[in-house]
């Protein structure tokens, strides 16, 4: 589609591609038109109407998000008529909105608040019409505050079309319209997978994670507690965005220093546990291949994905690897191995994780995740919650010194780093499985075919003369495709990686607001750069992991591993 059309935008004659919207044409030519319901990765909705513009020959104003440019179109985006209309629409939204900005979780990054500021709205003349709905606190991970909902439909769109879980709907009509689970049920009464993609999509403070930062502050204050923290692979490439820095910064050292400033006793790395995961999962795959176990084997590191398969496809649970996720392997090892090495009793150790994900909160609270004899992970914070803690202490992220992770759970490899990107677990596993099976060194470490944002990727890898077919899916709508193909017997894969969120963990529901696919791409690239620059790039070469097996675990899939690092799943379908 190379066709261009000539349009006149506020008097400027410009040439733009024929298939784009007025909003996009304006954006490419220096004007960001306001929008609330529009999201760059979603279908156009045209509900909120704040993007309307004047088009010559049209009786009414037209929404720029849903109107395609046409040859000769004369567009005006800032006439008195447009300005008054847009301002009035925002005024009308605000009249039906609690004025609680100062104490709102979105105070600093609310799209509605920003728009009101941008338009210079200083007076709401419309009659206040806010009704008080009860806040839904029923979910273990998310809060829904319908009072702040502006009915943009972005959450429902992502829940239905990106995740295909489809539990958020728009109900009722007129001023009674309400976005919530069916029949106005609570979130805990429907099969929500806790992915948090709805949170990322919401422009305002109407859905957000259950904030657990005070639990962490309390633990840090408690002299009886030894508080340790682990950071997931994807946090180091996204945390900078919490400080307004561009996406795709690798800020591992600053992240460590920031955490040290907060008062954590030890700063460890989930990447260490990711390398352990590869050891266990790779060996599990080899064992399944040898003993005729259930294939294809599905990865298990993404808790939103585990929630999904347990609730929606329980009949396929035998395919799921028994490995715990890196977060939970870390937790179980922290309260056993680290306790032993450091001589600190497990009951005094308080494990905090910094995760890209709201489902990690749910995972940490699961009954199954207490194999150390204690709750293995005490609190899982999202990237956003960490951002909040850091901002509250006056952290100036860009000038922080470069810190170093602590021993003995701070060393990692490039294989672990790429866990945060879709295809990364697969690539890491292949690096190890190849070398273990063939006994030869892998010549090219990059498995390009499993990288990138395409929804379902597949590849055939030659290992010791036999072709191994693998697939990678991210976003639950793509996971669903894979599951359906397994169900119908059409999936002739050996190993499949599934991540709940688009792009993998770098696109998780706990990541900074504004996580568009474009930003996800930047974060992914940062992870691959990180991998490339690492000395060690294969999990089985991690010296700290070798030491862990030598001193504590024995061998992968051994008795201790089995007890601490593996789990089981249950049918949780409604």
């Amino acid at each position, binding site marked *: 589609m190379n066709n261009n059309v000539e349009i006149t935008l506020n008097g400027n004659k410009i040439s733009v591609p024929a298939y784009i919207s007025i909003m996009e044409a304006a954006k490419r030519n220096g004007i960001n038109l306001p929008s609330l319901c529009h999201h760059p990765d979603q279908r*156009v*909705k*045209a*509900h*909120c*109407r*704040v993007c*309307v513009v004047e088009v010559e020959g049209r009786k*009414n*104003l037209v*929404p720029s998000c*849903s109107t*395609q440019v046409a040859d000769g179109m004369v567009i005006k985006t800032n006439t008195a*008529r447009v300005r*008054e*209309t847009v301002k*009035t*629409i925002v005024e*009308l*939204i605000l*009249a*039906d909105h609690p004025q609680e900005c100062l104490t709102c979780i979105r105070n600093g990054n609310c799209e509605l608040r920003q728009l009101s500021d941008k338009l210079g709205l*200083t*007076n709401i*003349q*419309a*009659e206040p*019409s806010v009704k008080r709905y009860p806040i839904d606190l029923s979910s273990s991970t998310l809060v829904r505050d319908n009072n702040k909902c502006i*009915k943009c*439909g972005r959450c429902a769109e992502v829940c239905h079309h990106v995740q295909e879980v489809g539990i958020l709907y*728009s109900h*009722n*009509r*007129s*001023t*009674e*319209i309400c976005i919530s689970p069916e029949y106005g049920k609570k979130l805990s009464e429907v099969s929500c997978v806790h992915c948090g993609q709805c949170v990322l999509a919401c422009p305002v403070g109407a859905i957000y994670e259950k904030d657990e930062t005070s639990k962490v502050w309390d633990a840090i204050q408690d002299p009886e507690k030894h508080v340790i923290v682990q950071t997931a692979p994807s946090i180091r490439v996204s945390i900078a965005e919490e400080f307004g820095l561009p996406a795709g910064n690798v800020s591992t050292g600053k992240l460590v220093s920031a955490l040290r400033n907060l008062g954590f006793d030890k700063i460890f790395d989930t990447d260490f546990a990711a390398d352990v995961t590869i050891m266990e999962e790779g060996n599990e795959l080899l064992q399944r291949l040898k003993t005729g176990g259930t294939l294809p084997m599905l990865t298990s590191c993404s808790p939103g994905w585990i929630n999904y398969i347990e609730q929606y496809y329980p009949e396929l649970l035998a395919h799921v690897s028994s490995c715990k996720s890196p977060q939970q392997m870390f937790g179980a090892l922290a309260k056993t191995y680290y306790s032993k090495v450091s001589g600190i009793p497990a009951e005094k150790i308080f494990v905090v994780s910094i995760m890209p994900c709201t489902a990690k909160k749910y995972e940490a609270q699961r009954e199954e995740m207490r194999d150390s004899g204690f709750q293995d992970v005490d609190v899982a914070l999202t990237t956003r919650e960490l951002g909040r803690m850091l901002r509250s202490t006056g952290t100036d992220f860009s000038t922080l010194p470069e810190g170093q992770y602590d021993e003995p759970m701070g060393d990692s490899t490039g294989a672990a780093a790429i866990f945060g990107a879709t295809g990364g677990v697969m690539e890491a596993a292949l690096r190890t499985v190849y070398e273990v099976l063939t006994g030869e060194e892998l010549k090219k470490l990059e498995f390009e075919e499993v990288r990138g944002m395409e929804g379902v990727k597949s590849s055939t890898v030659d290992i010791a003369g036999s072709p191994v077919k693998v697939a990678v899916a991210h976003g639950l709508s793509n996971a669903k495709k894979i599951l359906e193909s397994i169900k119908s017997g059409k999936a002739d894969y050996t190993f499949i990686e599934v991540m709940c969120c688009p792009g993998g963990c770098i696109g998780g529901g706990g990541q900074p607001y504004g996580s568009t696919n474009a930003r996800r791409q930047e974060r992914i690239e940062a992870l691959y750069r990180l991998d490339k620059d690492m000395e060690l790039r294969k999990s089985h070469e991690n010296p700290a992991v070798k030491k862990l097996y030598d001193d504590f675990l024995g061998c992968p899939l051994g008795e201790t591993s089995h007890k601490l690092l593996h789990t089981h799943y249950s049918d949780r379908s409604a």
Partner: protein
Amino acid sequence: MNNSAQNDKYVFNFNFDEYLDIETYKQRGGFSALESALKEEQDNVIKKIKQSGLKGRGGAAFPSGIKLEMVNRAEGAEKYIICNADEGEPGTFKDRFIMTHIPYQLLEGITIAAYAAGAEKGFLYIRHEYPKPRKRMEQAIKELEEAGYLGKNILGSNFSLELQIFSGAGSYLCGEETALLASIEGKKGRPQIKPPFPTQSGYKGFPTLIHNVETLTNIPKIIEKGPEWYTSLGTDDSHGTKLISLSGDVKNRGLYEVPFGTSFHEIIYEYGGGPLEGHTVKAVNIGGASGVLVPPDRLHVSLEYGTCAEEEITIGSGAVFVLDERRDILDNVHNRVRFFLHESCGKCTPCREGLRQANILLERFRNAEASYNDLEKLERYTRVMQDASFCGLGQAAGNSLKTSFHYYRDEYISKIRNEEPAEVIA
């Protein structure tokens, strides 16, 4: 003023006390249009409709021939026809009349249009509150199928049409074509983004012709008597006739077939016999709830698409409601705002919030507690609603408000508590 049965000046040829049966319909030339149409090329039928200048009678007045051609030319494994019999506009009762009195002419029109468009399946979307017309149509469809005018291989041709009745979801908005489609597909009856238009992607994504009952009922006569005959009715601007549902404070309420070019004055005073004894016309609401308020001194305007557009009069579905001096304009406008507030789907901001505010403000005017600033706000919200709403509901909901500000401003001013114009509020 009933129209006589065989009058060549009329399209509908009905008697009010007559409920036509299939035999009488045939005797009066019924189905001859279908017979001849099926022998013609589809394009020829389309050409005749185009030449007739027939425009949609459901409100938007889009040229029927062009719509037919768009569906005919659209790519699609299947094509559909939908007859919109949702008739939700308050004060409109023409489609009900057609369905109960002359159902065969409607079905013949549907079949000819389907043939021209290339649609072999279709729906008759009947308003939920119309159980009797629905029964009548069910029976008529059965009769036609038995007689070979509907169903497989109509009149021995290659053309088949499978027609189903669908009961409306009971909301005004479901008459809007994309909401109607959503409702037939089993989804919530809310409007969808256009484009794609139903002509390209309608029912289940197939090209779909959607026409109002009245529009389709014109078609057999155009084919039977020819487009030249049709264009001889009405004016150069608007051909044919329009069914007018006349009600309110007028002597002879009822349904009239009125040639285009007739003035609203004639409609009210000649067809309707004028206001009730001892009373005077204060305002006329033209176009139903979504229509405008017209003062008596503007009734000389003639019923014509072009003229009415210039005069900002909405012909809409053809509802004309007369208000005499006993009626309160603000009452009337407020009732309509409440109607739309109830019927709004709520998905777009200007309609949902604009109507909410208009309701609050009108309440204040009716209680004589309003200020000048309230009037300014009401006008601003009305304009935004008209200018920026997603669908025709919100866009039209401001019509009566806007005309009331223009023609009946005094009624608002008289309800303002503080007679001093307020300082301009920043």
